[in-house]
């Protein structure tokens, strides 16, 4: 009896102690003071997706650099991020905290298709910018009319898939294609785009498409065996890094040697392909993929002014990070964009003003204000009905452990600008 009473009282005392720390009073525009702008985002710092943890580190490094150069219209950027473990339930609660307790100005670069889908309606209902989400899921760019406060950033998966399709039509019109794709929105977006790029006439080139579930506990051995058995001479891999590397290795184990391999850009990085080679794969050389950012693990870009700036920023503001990791550069490149739109939104900073700027961006080499961390020539452009900030990529081929650009920029969507 007494014990029950004590328990209840103690529990309530704990709740009171916990609950008491409310939060600062919101300013006129939440997150904006005379001296600072609060930007926050959720990232998987633990769990299976924690490989993406370098992204917010890169972003922080660039924001520190920008702050050192005077900030944005006299205000310094206050960048905070927290771990959601890629669990959308955590993303929702943490995002509520960002909006209602911390009064962040904008949610920036939130990572993950599902985590960001979970908070999209909430942020739009509360008119909080969901800026430059870190995912290539097409819906974030395409559905701007329904979700005016949400905008993507990187080239979307469907567009990338279409580029591969067009490449096949132009260069491998008689190839027999075997596709290994991840059985979720990621893989489906790629495959849909790929088929669109192939057009109706060439879709029969796909002799087999094998689905692989990311939560499967065994490598895609069965699927690779079926692709080999289908006689496909062109292997297309639309999966995240681990199953992609496993596919390369299993292919060789089975004695499968396709003439061409096309791998999506998320998984086609030098570190991952090197692991595949070390693990015994002999079909890594010649892999075709696409890129849109400078690649710090590729020495051919070392002379680019953007790469030099990147390395300076990383050395000064994130010395412990691995500057050769492309994910750090991704963060820096995105943060550059964030600073641009903040500056353009002017000293009278409002959330609506920020979104208006983000929806009308034009950073191009012609105007000498292109993203220095993107490949030369890449334009960041949004306008009216076109809300895909970066939609250009270049084809790259993995030769001697380095991705060699192949020809000019390609437009994933719309015309080349």
């Amino acid at each position, binding site marked *: 009896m007494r014990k*029950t009473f004590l328990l209840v009282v103690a529990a309530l005392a*704990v709740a009171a102690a916990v609950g008491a720390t409310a939060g600062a009073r919101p300013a006129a525009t939440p997150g904006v003071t005379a001296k600072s702008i609060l930007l926050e985002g959720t990232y998987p710092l*633990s769990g299976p997706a924690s490989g993406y943890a370098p992204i917010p580190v890169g972003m922080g490094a660039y924001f520190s650099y920008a702050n050192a150069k005077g900030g944005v219209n006299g205000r310094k950027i206050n960048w905070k991020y927290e771990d959601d473990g890629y669990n959308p*339930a955590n993303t929702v609660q943490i995002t509520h905290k960002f909006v209602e307790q911390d009064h962040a100005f904008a949610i920036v670069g939130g990572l993950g298709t599902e985590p960001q889908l979970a908070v999209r309606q909430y942020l739009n209902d509360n008119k909080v910018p969901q800026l430059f989400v870190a995912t290539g899921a097409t819906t974030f760019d395409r559905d701007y009319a329904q979700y005016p406060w949400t905008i993507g950033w990187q080239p979307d998966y469907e567009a990338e898939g279409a580029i591969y399709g067009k490449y096949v039509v132009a260069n491998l019109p008689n190839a027999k294609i075997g596709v290994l794709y991840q059985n979720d929105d990621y893989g489906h977006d790629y495959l849909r785009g790929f088929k669109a790029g192939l057009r109706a006439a060439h879709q029969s080139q796909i002799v087999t498409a094998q689905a692989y579930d990311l939560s499967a506990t065994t490598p895609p051995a069965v699927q690779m065996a079926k692709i080999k058995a289908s006689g496909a001479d062109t292997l297309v891999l639309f999966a995240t890094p681990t199953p992609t590397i496993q596919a390369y290795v299993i292919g060789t184990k089975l004695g499968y040697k396709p003439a061409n391999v096309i791998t999506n850009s998320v998984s086609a990085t030098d570190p991952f392909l090197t692991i595949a080679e070390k693990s015994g794969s002999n079909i890594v050389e010649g892999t075709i993929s696409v890129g849109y950012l400078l690649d710090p693990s590729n020495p051919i870009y070392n002379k680019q002014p953007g790469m030099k700036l990147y390395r300076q920023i990383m050395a000064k503001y994130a010395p412990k990070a691995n500057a050769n990791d492309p994910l750090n550069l991704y963060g820096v490149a995105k943060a550059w964009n964030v600073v641009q739109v903040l500056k353009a939104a002017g000293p009278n900073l409002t959330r609506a003003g920020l979104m208006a700027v983000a929806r009308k961006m034009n950073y191009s080499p012609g105007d000498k204000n292109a993203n220095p961390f993107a490949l030369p020539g890449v334009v960041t452009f949004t306008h009216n009905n076109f809300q895909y900030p970066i939609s250009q990529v270049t084809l790259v081929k993995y030769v001697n452990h380095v991705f060699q650009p192949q020809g000019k920029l390609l437009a994933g969507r719309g015309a080349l600008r």
Partner: protein
Amino acid sequence: MKRLGNPVALGVLVVAVIAAPFLFSNYRTYQLAFVGLYLVALLGLDILTGFTGQISLGHGAFMGIGAYTTTILVVDHGVRDLWTIPLGGLIAGVIGLAFGIPATRFAGPYLALATFAIPLAFIGLLKRFPHFTGGNVGKNLPQLKAEFGWHTSPSIWFYVVCWTVALVMLPLAFFIVRGRFGRAMRSVRDSEIAATANGISTAGVKTLAFGISAFYCGVAGSLYGIGITYVNPDTFPIDLSILLLVGIVLGGAGSLYGMLFGALFVEFIRISWGPALLNLFSKVHHIDTHAPGSGLVVYGVVLLLVLYAAPSGAAGLARFSFGSKTRIIRPRHPPGPPAKGENA
């Protein structure tokens, strides 16, 4: 009246629950709403593990079943969200019963490991039937809007819904554990042989306990889906089932009011206390508070420390404070399955 739990304690709780939204910010109220729904889930798991002695590592899946039931009914069939709460519980409860029937054949650790299979199977099934469940992408639910002409924020309305449910399910839990069935449960926990010798059908008791606990978790799951406004397989990982188990141990398995502590811990540790503790550490000893994995280490260490300080949970501590001092070293009937060495 005693059958429904200490009325004074309940009264204090009700007063506190009503007062809280006026005292705390909108965001804290939102969090306290989750405390309410976790309370319901922990009550359910406690009935199975604390009172009947069956360890389950799969009750996060029953929450998932409740959440998906609610989501599919609301999004695809236009049912009013509030009505789906008992339905979510019911469907989860039926599945729990169905699982309980064969599960009673398994002894302790076999059962624990078998229940481990439930969330895995659940996630696999969710992905296998994407047309029905939305697959990996999941489904979005519409925000719960205040009813009955109230004009409050969605967070406060959600709080009202969660605690109304919790304040009904709590006396109900007392009713269950303080009656004949409750005595049967505890006898199964303490000695299956003695229970059988007394004419109790241990299989029946265990099965029913499974069903009841699944029902509670299903209700909690419906509320969870409504609060998160999104469901997908990643939202119900194994971690959730483990978190529920952590909650009942820290609250004190076998105590119902102890689950309040458990619920507070479950809600606040990941979102609030973990990062706060890490910040505190970094002031003392410089560490990168964003280092991947650091949050987990803090969570694990805190868990261990609390286990050492209070092996029988908050309820155990309360027993110590108010009970006879001589009992602390060997409480006569530690809640949960018997320790090694004790006669089964």
